């Protein structure tokens, strides 16, 4: 067994363990942390497959950004797990049946020989100095430019939808509007009133005070 194989089996085992913990553990914060572990081991598996750029992006984007936000949400929302688990036993028989069926089906498919080494010969390794980042970039901006742009439109829709569904103007909050502050004129705030001077009756007492 070469070192790569050893690394693959090690990280694959960790990945499966972490993924199983994500769905079975009770504490949502721990579940999120196990998801981080799962992402990290998946990234390591990808590195053994020579997809370095994707592996690093997975760590940076998912572990670094998405999961941190996820943890924030989990901590801020007080999720009542007892209520969410209601009805779990009720749906367990049918859910379990479907899960078992799926596992069986996939086992049959995987052992059918359609995915053996003769169908999928081991790909040639890349020479030293090969940049998969460059290859990926070349493909995305040439052959896959159409799906790439579509993905951008989908992100735009997500932004529009999120803002349209959550943005609300509350007239009762006291917020500052810098634009209005800047454009305000003296005449808007200050009123110069002309009035005849009045003679103060008692000048000396004010001076003493």
């Amino acid at each position, binding site marked *: 067994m070469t070192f790569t194989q050893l690394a693959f089996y090690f990280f694959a085992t960790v990945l499966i363990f972490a993924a199983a913990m994500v769905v079975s553990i009770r504490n949502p914060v721990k579940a999120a942390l196990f998801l981080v572990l799962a992402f990290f081991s998946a990234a390591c598996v990808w590195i053994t497959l020579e997809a370095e750029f994707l592996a690093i992006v997975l760590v940076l984007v998912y572990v670094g950004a998405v999961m941190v936000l996820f943890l924030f949400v989990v901590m801020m929302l007080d999720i009542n797990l007892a209520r969410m688990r209601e009805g779990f036993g009720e749906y367990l028989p049918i859910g379990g049946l479907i899960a078992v069926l799926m596992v069986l*089906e996939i086992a049959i498919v995987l052992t059918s020989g359609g995915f053996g080494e003769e169908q999928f010969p081991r790909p040639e390794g890349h020479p030293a100095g090969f940049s998969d980042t460059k290859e990926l970039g070349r493909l995305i901006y040439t052959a896959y430019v*159409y799906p790439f742009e*579509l993905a951008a439109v989908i992100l735009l829709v997500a932004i529009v*939808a999120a803002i*349209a569904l959550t943005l609300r103007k509350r007239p009762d909050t006291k917020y500052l509007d810098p634009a209005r502050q800047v454009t305000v004129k003296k005449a808007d705030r200050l009123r110069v009133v002309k009035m005849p001077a009045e003679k103060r009756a008692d000048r000396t007492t004010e001076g003493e005070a």
Partner: protein
Amino acid sequence: MELNIQPILPEIFICAMACVILVLDLYLKPERRTIAYVLTVMTLLVAAGLYWQDFATGSAVYLNGMFIKDRFSDVVKIAICLLSLLVFVYSREYIKARDLFLSEYFVLGLFAVLGMMVMVSAGHFLALYLGLELLSLSLYAMVAFQRDSSVATEAAMKYFVLGALGSAMLLYGMSIIYGLTGSLDISVVRGIVAAQAAPDNVILVLGLVFILVSLAFKIGAVPFHMWVPDVYHGAPTSSTLFVSTAPKLAGFAIIIRLLVGGLEDLHFMWRDMLIVLAVLSMLLGNLIAIAQTNLKRMLAYSAISHMGFMLLGILAGTPNGYSAGLFYGLVYTFMGLGGFGIVVLLSRAGYEADELDDLRGLNQSHPWYAFLILIFMFSMAGVPPTLGFFAKLSVIQAVIDVELTWLAVIAVLFTVIGAFYYLRVIKLVYFDPPAVAAREISATADLRVLLSANAVALVLLLPMVGPIQEMCTQAIASVVGAF
């Protein structure tokens, strides 16, 4: 590599206009929002014109096989543009009365249309999936748009969760097929699948099952229909109008692209699966619709049964069958548009006319609208002098042609059962005493005229049935003949 963007010009136009409206909205005063509405309608009109002007004669593939332009795509795209345009015109007053008249609503609608265009032209699994997601995301947001309504939020949540499940199934199926063929390009997949199509190829069976399940989810065929009644009922009727019309055609288009364009050599496998889906949809849709007291829910179950009928055409597996399915889809979407259009027409600010009882005795106060309901219901039930009859007829003919006579008999039987609840609506409208004394209809002139035209067209287009069916046949021929 040269990038030819000429064929996707209409798509780029729709996308650009959606962005223009989005930015323009920043500078629009709320009372001037009609400008956004007019721009949206113009965009759809111009896009339909662009497709019409550049109507395909054969079948061509662009952008590395990701974009197919043929007669089929152009016919379906023009229909989608017109349907969405009518949806926006129908729902304008409705959303104004409910404070939903926001530019974002139109922007989301335009992006949904863009997603449908991508789906209809998809020649690649990736493009197909991204188009589907673009459509679905926009639809989820449109269903949830009435954010103060808990029913709408619940409907959107159900739609989102089940829709995400459907998309996951599609991805799973696609990845299995990809694992077998090593390609995401549908025409390449077709070639490899043709060589390996054997009944004992379990990998293909599993991939096909996942793809079919997700397609059934998306068009709402039994047993993957659970979201349909809740979403149609809970969403604001304007969004129901949108969800129930053009996306059904787009769903039909991706079924054609995937099953006929890619996996036609597995017809012997997917035919039986589709038979189960179709029979269950017609059975459950028609039977449960009888028990409904809410018009929107009733129309939702009727939509499920109509989808079963549309699948009949596809499962025949002949060019005739596919074109009958396309014809059925076209006719059904315009009927469904009218059916929900009636709900919009009768609604006012703060009042939803979505209970069956609201229709009681409509004939006494508004005989013309009662007549429109009569036409829509007759057409959906498939009563002869309407297009609905010819749509059902052509599908049943296609099924008999491939010697599935028992299936045709079942389809006719369920149509008769379904006629009950359509005729009940007509009975309520014509023969029952009015529930409320005087009913005022505050619909604007454009809604009245277009809805009337929509209904009358279902009868007056009868002499055109031949040419329309010919158009469908040619559209399908451009898909089937491309190989």
